[in-house]
């Protein structure tokens, strides 16, 4: 298990190096796929994107296709790796649990000052729900993209209904992927979530933050630490914790 409490450094290892590589491989290749996917629409000339310095290639659909394919290799391999590797290891921390929907509503309400956040595991309940949503979107994009790629090389005359399904699944899930990406960025922008951002860059989050916001996770890692953790209803506002951390880091 990678997760580890580093008490003397006031840190908890939240993600392994492999997980960080997986995340960033999917994130960066996904971004390239988003941009080059947009450039596969006839927008480069129409919206004068070609006039933007460095984007002269945006109206060349074949150049965009090169980049789209290159990113798709990384995206697909990393996506499939993630699914199979963590599946084999039986890691289910990101899978939704019973009650996640109502817990998510509580968390979201608390972000706007209504009520207290419930004690949380390693991942927030809405993170687990979002993960399944994003994983499904990615899976659909990969499957439909593979059909389209096969058609491009070997079968321009493939069954029209199959092609139309693949095309529209790819287009619709492209929009959903874009929306999911924006939602992901919006979640990061929320102040209480800021302490988690360092985790996706360094793999580690602050122990004091984790003890207050993710007590159930810390209890799993080291039950003795839970005893020293105040019950959730006595915890300071997570907003304050984030603020405190920002000030300390600043």
């Amino acid at each position, binding site marked *: 298990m990678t997760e580890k409490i580093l008490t003397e450094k006031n840190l908890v290892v939240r993600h392994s190096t492999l997980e960080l590589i997986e995340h960033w491989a999917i994130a960066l290749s996904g971004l390239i796929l988003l941009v080059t996917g947009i450039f*596969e629409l*006839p927008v480069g000339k129409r*919206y004068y994107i070609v006039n933007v310095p460095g984007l002269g290639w945006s109206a060349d659909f*074949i150049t965009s*296709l090169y980049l789209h394919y290159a990113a798709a290799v990384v995206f*697909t391999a990393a996506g499939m*790796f993630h699914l199979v590797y963590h599946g*084999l290891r039986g890691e289910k921390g990101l899978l939704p649990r019973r009650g996640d929907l109502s817990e998510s509503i509580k968390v979201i309400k608390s972000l706007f000052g209504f009520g207290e956040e419930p004690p949380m595991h390693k991942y927030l309940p809405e993170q687990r729900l979002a993960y399944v949503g994003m994983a499904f979107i990615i899976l659909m994009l990969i499957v439909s993209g593979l059909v389209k*790629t096969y058609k491009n090389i070997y079968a321009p005359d493939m069954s*029209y209904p199959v092609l139309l399904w693949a095309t529209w699944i790819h287009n619709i899930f492209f929009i959903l992927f874009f929306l999911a990406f924006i939602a992901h960025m919006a979640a990061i922008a929320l102040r209480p979530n800021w302490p988690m951002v360092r985790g996706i860059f360094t793999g580690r989050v602050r122990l004091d933050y984790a003890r207050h916001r993710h007590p159930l996770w810390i209890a799993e890692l080291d039950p003795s630490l839970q005893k020293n953790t105040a019950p959730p209803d006595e915890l300071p506002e997570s907003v304050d914790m984030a603020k405190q951390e920002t000030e300390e880091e600043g």
Partner: protein
Amino acid sequence: MTQQDHFRMGRRSFLKITAAAAVASAAGLPQKAYAAKDRQLATLIDLSLCDGCPDRKVPACVGACKEINKNKIPRVIDPIPEPWPRKTIENWSKKQDVFNRLTPYNFIYVHKAELTVDGEKKTVFVPRRCMHCDNPACVTICPFSANHKNKNGAVVIDQNSCFGGAKCRDVCPWEIPQRQSGVGIYLHVLPGLMGNGVMYKCDLCHERLAKGKLPGCIEACPREALLIGDRRAIEQLAESRAGRMNGYIYGKTQNGGTSTFYVSPVPFEDLDKTMVKKPGQPDMKTDVKRRMADTDPLAKAVLASPVVGIAAAGIMGFLSKRKDRAKKEA
């Protein structure tokens, strides 16, 4: 039989050279042979036979095509919504009679090439239309799959799902598809912001083929300069005709191969020199590469990538579990 007689082989005679067609011909229903949707077809355009129909105002192939497709484009909305921010509008609705170039209302035209070959002045007439390529980028790269290649080789744009972005024209080496603004599905979505009409081009009269009829241009040609038939038979016929006239073939290798075979007694390089590429008037360069072919190796890597990801996960998953077990035992 003179060489010219060979070239003037009739449609019925031609059909006899293909096995499937021969059966149909014997049954007295030669045209039914075209109705088989999965049978790969090809067309032959014999430039040694085409004379541009000097006795007609409009060449017979062009006239027949226009007649068949005269009601294809629905009424164009007036005024046509102005696209934003680039305000390009392509409206041919008031110039439907134009027949000397490709337009949304004219899917075939005849180029007149006047050239000197071996000191001899010659006039060659070249019917131009969609080549119906074997692996057409206009089909594979359409973001809405509005353009599709049928099993019989016909490349067909579905005007009900085309947004008129003209991407197909951009990737076509001959820039064949032509846009009519003010019609199509884009009018019902965001006409000012996305889409700009519908793309039109020759569809090999696929609906007529399905009914066992010949494409209009082929049926109308008085000199039988245009033929259609089984792909392999047409290819062989093109080879044999080119061989007999010591001539040349165009369309066999261009853009990765097409299902249109031009046969000419003069080199296509010379014909190309008589053509100035303009909108709706393609040239005839002989070194036309299929640009997407260069992306195929990377596309194959995409197809292999799930296997690579799964294999790597399997190996690493196994190793990490073994490591975990060793740790526990220690």
